[in-house]
């Protein structure tokens, strides 16, 4: 058997796990590991400019590929800088392994230089975390970390590695385990057959059904199963913002997304439904609005791999704990076998009603002859990329517009921080995707607020040649904050505007990229065409849009799902 140092074992374990890229930043406690990285070529390391970006890069890659992202940082500030990224991944159940250096074991607890209790700090925002207590444990711990990150409901796993565990002169037998088993951890491998049967009976008897599909469909690789079942039943489908692409947005059965800024027809259909089939969704407050007024006539079937998601905020009538792909598949075969069929008259009437709701909003936004409207930016992006790009977003109005106006037909294409709402997420996430899919079109939709939260990564893009596109929807304000201030604070704009924006085009030039400023509608599409035609350049489109536009629909606070503002003046 081979003898390796702890540091070499870490890198070898990553290689044996099939990891190609890791993202990180070196520092004292991680230097033995960085030295081990230097002495091999299998695992490639991307040096970011701030550790938070390393985590978002790994996260973006994980969301696009379905594989876990891997991060390597040092102790103390290196580790604490990852926290926002880890919390982002945790809220959206993204598989990730974060390796953190730690001060040497005998200094732990003594407030040593660059010491932070990373296990304690990260505990509430990880699926699990572990400390290496002996170098010989390293292969097993790393295997466990990947196993936990990827199975069941995925999530980030942190491994804390005291520096003495990686000492180069102490060598131990290395063998990477093929499998690990934990007696205390056994995620569900299939749903309860009786519950599935009961759910299918209810579905076949439903007169006003809706499928409410979340990020679990993407994470559980169940888009096909969902689409097949929805088609077979002719049920309408609404996706959460995490679930976009899980069901094709251009499919006639798609209602778009639901919730606070969801489509009118989605929210109306949900509210008036008699049966909700919730698939890999968690009845988040941005979806349900006030839970006591939530869909009063609906019985709820809820499929989720994580039992804690079921009946947490809204009680399920038929809970089904299991992987969404296998449960949906079993449902489809039961539907096919069943003698009972959905009532065609009831479904016809339901679709008629839904189509009326679809036609209710004649104009989704008002065009202006003075300004480019932010919605037009996304429409142009959709057109120019033929609806087939990887779109990441930051957080705020531009995120909502991107989710509303870019029609995602495939899973894993829409990459956003839905749960935590992390500004600064989109750009590094796009970098992680561009690195792995160099031939794909990758665009980050952002705003002048969000982009400045991780703008230092322009330098990383130069170093590793990441020619992604940045679509800066520039309304010269923190748009969503401003919208709330318009609606709830009589337009008192407390710190929601920025009157000292940099010249982004010059900034791009300084970093060796291309910046194009767009202020007129007629220049919008040509500029976008030009940007995407520059295959070898990172191009930043600084697009000035109407600074006063709001995102609609918007649910009325503490109302039911159907209580919405549809414009600045129309409330239904």
């Amino acid at each position, binding site marked *: 058997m081979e003898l390796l140092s702890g540091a070499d074992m870490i890198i070898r374990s990553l290689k044996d796990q099939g990891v190609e890229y890791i993202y990180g930043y070196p520092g004292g406690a991680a230097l033995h590991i960085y030295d081990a990285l230097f002495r091999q070529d299998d695992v490639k390391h991307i040096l970011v400019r701030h550790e938070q970006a390393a985590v978002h890069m790994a996260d973006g890659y994980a969301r696009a590929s379905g594989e876990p992202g891997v991060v390597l940082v040092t102790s103390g500030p290196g580790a604490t800088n990852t926290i926002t990224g880890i919390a982002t991944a945790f809220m959206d159940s993204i598989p990730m392994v974060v390796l953190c250096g730690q001060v040497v074991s005998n200094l732990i607890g003594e407030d040593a230089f660059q010491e932070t209790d990373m296990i304690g700090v990260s*505990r509430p925002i990880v699926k699990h975390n572990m400390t290496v207590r002996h170098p010989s444990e390293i292969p097993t711990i790393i295997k466990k970390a990947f196993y936990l990150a990827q199975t069941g409901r995925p999530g980030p796993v942190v491994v804390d590695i005291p520096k003495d565990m990686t000492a180069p002169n102490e060598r131990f037998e290395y063998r990477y385990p093929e499998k690990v088993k934990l007696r205390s951890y056994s995620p569900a491998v299939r749903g309860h057959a009786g519950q599935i049967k009961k759910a299918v009976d209810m579905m076949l008897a439903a007169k006003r059904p809706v499928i409410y599909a979340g990020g679990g469909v993407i994470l559980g690789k169940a888009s096909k199963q969902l689409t097949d079942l929805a088609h077979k039943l002719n049920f309408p489908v609404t996706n959460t913002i995490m679930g976009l692409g899980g069901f094709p947005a251009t499919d006639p059965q798609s209602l778009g997304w639901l919730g606070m800024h969801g489509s009118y027809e989605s929210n109306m259909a949900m509210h008036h439904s008699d049966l909700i089939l919730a698939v890999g969704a968690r009845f988040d407050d941005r979806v349900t609005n006030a839970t006591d007024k939530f869909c009063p006539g609906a019985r709820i079937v809820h499929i989720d791999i994580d039992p804690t998601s079921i009946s947490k905020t809204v009680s399920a009538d038929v809970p089904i704990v299991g992987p969404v792909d296998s449960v949906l598949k079993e449902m489809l075969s039961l539907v096919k076998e069943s003698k009972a069929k959905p009532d065609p008259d009831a479904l016809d009437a339901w679709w008629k009603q839904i189509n009326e709701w679809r036609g209710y909003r004649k104009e989704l936004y008002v065009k202006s002859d003075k300004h480019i409207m932010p919605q037009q930016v996304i429409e142009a992006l959709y057109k120019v990329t033929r609806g087939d790009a990887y779109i990441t977003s930051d957080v705020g109005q531009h995120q909502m517009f991107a989710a509303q106006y870019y029609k995602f037909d495939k899973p894993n294409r829409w990459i956003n921080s839905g749960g935590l709402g992390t500004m600064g997420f989109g750009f590094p996430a796009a970098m992680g995707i561009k690195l792995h899919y160099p031939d794909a079109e990758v665009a980050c939709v952002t705003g002048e607020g969000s982009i400045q939260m991780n703008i230092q990564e322009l330098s990383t893009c130069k170093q590793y040649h990441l020619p992604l596109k940045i679509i800066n929807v520039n309304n010269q304000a923190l748009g969503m904050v401003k919208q709330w201030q318009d609606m709830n604070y009589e337009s008192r704009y407390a710190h929601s505007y920025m009157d000292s924006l940099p010249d982004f085009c010059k900034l791009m030039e300084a970093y060796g990229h291309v910046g194009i400023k767009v202020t007129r509608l007629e220049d919008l599409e040509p500029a976008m065409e030009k940007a995407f035609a520059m295959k070898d350049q990172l191009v930043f489109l600084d697009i000035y849009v109407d600074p006063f536009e709001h995102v609609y629909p918007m649910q009325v606070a503490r109302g039911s799902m159907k209580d919405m503002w549809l414009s600045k003046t129309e409330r239904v």
Partner: protein
Amino acid sequence: MRRIISVLMENEPGSLSRVVGLFSQRNYNIETLTVAPTDDDTLSRLTVTTEGSDRVIEQITKQLNKLVEVVKLVDLTEGAHIERELMLIKLKASGAQRAEVKRTVDIFRGQIVDVTSTVYTVQLAGDSDKLDAFIQAVSALGVLEVVRSGVSGIARGEKVLAL
């Protein structure tokens, strides 16, 4: 309703803090908490008493189960069970009061485990209500110090919480 949840978990550093962290993070309430290794020294048994609606208790048990180091758990209050808590209590015991303290301790079937000329230290085990009742009974006599272990519990009959 008050519940007693018994948890069998990996006896590893940090396990306890995950449980305690979960309760504060999710805004659940801990009334009492006891923890010690079991006969199998790879396992710890933790007993927590908490209050909450059925929905909250369901979430608590699910969230506890989700912790990677939790092997098994049971809500003892769902069935017949035995609960015990140990209390050590120092009472003023001088003059005529000395006999009164002794009588009360006997009634509650406690034991005096340490004596000075002015103080009795009493050991008492029972369910939490009994300990409350004893404190009430001796409160007029001068309670100097109270230490309670928190609740431990076990199901009645054949049911066991083990691997």
